[in-house]
């Protein structure tokens, strides 16, 4: 007779894993990745590779030599951080700046708090915001898509901030959809981001609550302003398709670690992000506000978790 194992129930597992979720995010980002390579070419590729390799390497080095704990780089979370950080950078950014961004993202944003699952703010966004305030010139030098000669232009939101709605007259919605506009690597191709986002929802990696509440808030907020004065304010479609709105709503705000745990909390968080983004875009000094909005709501998340509890069974007795 062989010895039997005795352990408490349940005796089976769904076979879901951290890896499955992380690599699921990578797969969902592939269409947008392809678009960025198509539009920005080599300048995008070098930024992407530098960002991913430095994020993974920095996590490995810190775990191995500073924390002296088993390394967890194979779980894919550092690679996802690297990928998302790169998506938030302009193509052709000097590579040493990319490395600095990775160091801030992984070193300060993630490992100082204890690694995966412990961080308060989204590491990739922290890295991006650090670079934006430290290197404002380089971080806002946007290559023109498909231009191999290194010409630079403005993002649609930049145009809006500088010249008002009138400056957008040459912009086609189709360009916004396919990504034929200035911007960071991963934010330009709206259609690719939508495909990736839907994949995340159908693969049950994320739920609809965060992206839908963000997009709905932005649509309502901008819709009201646009309805009041369409000559001063851009239309809701424009706001949704530009400035990392889709990248942020589907891929960055939904970061497991830094978003709320209950569905009601997720909606509060999403509405908060939508509102803050629109306030910055409409009334602030920066042309875009998605990163700041997510960062601010990341910090509010523990508070949301305290007050927004899931609806318990039998709490409201149905008659």
């Amino acid at each position, binding site marked *: 007779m*062989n010895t039997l194992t005795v352990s*408490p129930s*349940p*005796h089976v597992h*769904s076979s879901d*894993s*951290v890896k499955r979720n992380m690599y699921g995010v990578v797969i969902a980002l592939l269409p947008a990745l392809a678009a960025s390579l198509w539009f920005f070419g080599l300048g995008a590729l070098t930024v992407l590779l530098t960002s991913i390799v430095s994020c993974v390497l920095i996590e490995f080095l810190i775990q191995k030599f500073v924390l002296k704990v088993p390394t967890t780089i194979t779980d894919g979370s550092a690679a996802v951080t690297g990928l998302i950080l790169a998506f938030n950078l302009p193509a052709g950014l000097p590579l040493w700046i990319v490395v600095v961004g990775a160091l801030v993202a992984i070193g300060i944003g993630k490992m100082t708090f204890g690694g995966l699952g412990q961080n308060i703010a989204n590491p990739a966004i922290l890295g991006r915001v650090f670079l934006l305030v430290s290197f404002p010139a380089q971080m806002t030098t946007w290559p023109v898509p498909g231009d191999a000669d290194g010409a630079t232009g403005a993002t649609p939101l930049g145009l809006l901030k500088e010249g008002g709605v009138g400056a957008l007259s040459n912009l086609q919605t189709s360009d916004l959809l396919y990504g034929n506009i200035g911007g960071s690597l991963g934010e330009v191709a709206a259609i690719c981001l939508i495909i990736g986002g839907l994949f995340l929802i159908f693969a049950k990696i994320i739920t609809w609550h965060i992206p839908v509440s963000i997009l709905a808030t932005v649509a309502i907020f901008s819709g009201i302003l646009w309805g009041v004065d369409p000559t001063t304010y851009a239309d809701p479609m424009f706001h949704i398709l530009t400035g990392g709105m889709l990248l942020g709503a589907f891929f960055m705000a939904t970061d497991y670690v830094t978003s709320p745990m209950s569905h009601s909390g997720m909606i509060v968080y999403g509405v908060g992000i939508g509102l803050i983004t629109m306030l910055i875009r409409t009334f602030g000094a920066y042309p875009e506000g998605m990163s700041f909005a997510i960062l601010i709501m990341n910090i509010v998340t523990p508070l949301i978790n305290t007050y927004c509890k899931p609806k*318990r*069974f*039998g709490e409201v007795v149905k008659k």
Partner: protein
Amino acid sequence: MLKTFSIGGIHPEENKLSAGNALKQFKLPADIKEVKIPVAQHIGAPAQPVVAVGDDVRVGQVIAQAGGFVSANIHAPFSGKVKKIEATTGDDGKPAMMITIAIEGDEWVETIDRSAGIKREITLSAEEIVKKIGEMGIVGMGGARFPAQVKLAVKPGQAQALIINGVECEPYLTADHRLMLEKSEEVLIGVKILMKAIGVSEAFIGIENNKKDAIDLLSKLAAGYPGIHVQPLKMKYPQGGEKQLIDACIGRQVASGALPISVGAVVQNVGTAFAVYEAVQKNKPLIERVVCVTGKPLQNPTNFWARIGTPVKALIEAAGGIPEDCEKIIGGGPMMGRAFANIDVPIHKGSSGILLMSKEESKRGEIANCIRCAKCVSVCPMGLEPFLLSKVSAKSLWDMAEENHIADCIECGSCSFTCPSNRPLLDYIRLGKGKVMGIMRARAAAAKAAAEAAKPAEEKK
């Protein structure tokens, strides 16, 4: 229309290996000369033995009497001589009082109607039915083993609907499924008896739609039983949970800490309905049941009709024996069943299944950091926060565990099943729930004692 419960739930692989295998009468091999019958086969007080060593017993004779209000009679499933009444090692490895019977022949008590025909006419009154069910030692046959007569003792007008659990949402198990297919008429008569006992005019038999054959057959037959409705349900675990099933069938949610009767519902398992039929119509006590012996490493998964007290090993042997790569043997299903610490034990009234698992299948993954993905929150059918309850339990923060409703946990295991980081969420929650419920009980007892002490002296008399 397919219904289901409103909050959370998961979809584990079904693995109903033995769904197509007809019930098979288990014959005890001749080399087994004695059987052990536990006196605690139910929730509540253990039964008190009423036979002595050396007594002759016949099949169906009471050998231990209910030891309290929440308790159940135990009847001899085999005839012979009482050999020992002593504590031996139970299936959890702890001592359990058992009555050992040395088998001699197969002599039945004469009052039991052993004829083959189905008896449809219900002659007993509601009170007589409840009394009879108590006498015959019927308990919840789904695995919970709650004495049936206790649930049926409702005040007139209190119950509005009877809900019959034919869900069998645990993967692998097919005991209830086969019973519904092969003893459909008896089950329906059992339901009718239960309806009469609690005075309701409507009953819902909840069956998940992975058992279409059972839904079709029972729906067809139920046409002849006014008030009995077959309710097809969308597959989702843990639909067989009492509160979840009530929600799914009649759309009412039982509040935290309340009993089903607070929303006018009484829930019984289909196996219990069949046992009730035999008890009331045939005067037959609960001495045998369907046991689904199953699992991927097993050669011939089988649904056995086996007498209570049949050795677990003998049943596994009859289904092909314990294979080399068997790592775990579970009493019940893979989600809520308990791993046997000792398989040298008999089956009892709640043994719905014996599940064998290979090392590969039962292996727990390596634990990683919680990534706060909130999937445990999404799947919890009670709307709790398993990640939080597990954390506060691990840190012994009992106050926080109680504030976050740890006592509501039904231990269905959906959280641990889902966790991508393989965290043993339910292990900690179970620990915390035990502690918190102990604290709650102690507090209630202290409050009662204080109220007692505060009363004026003359009122105390």
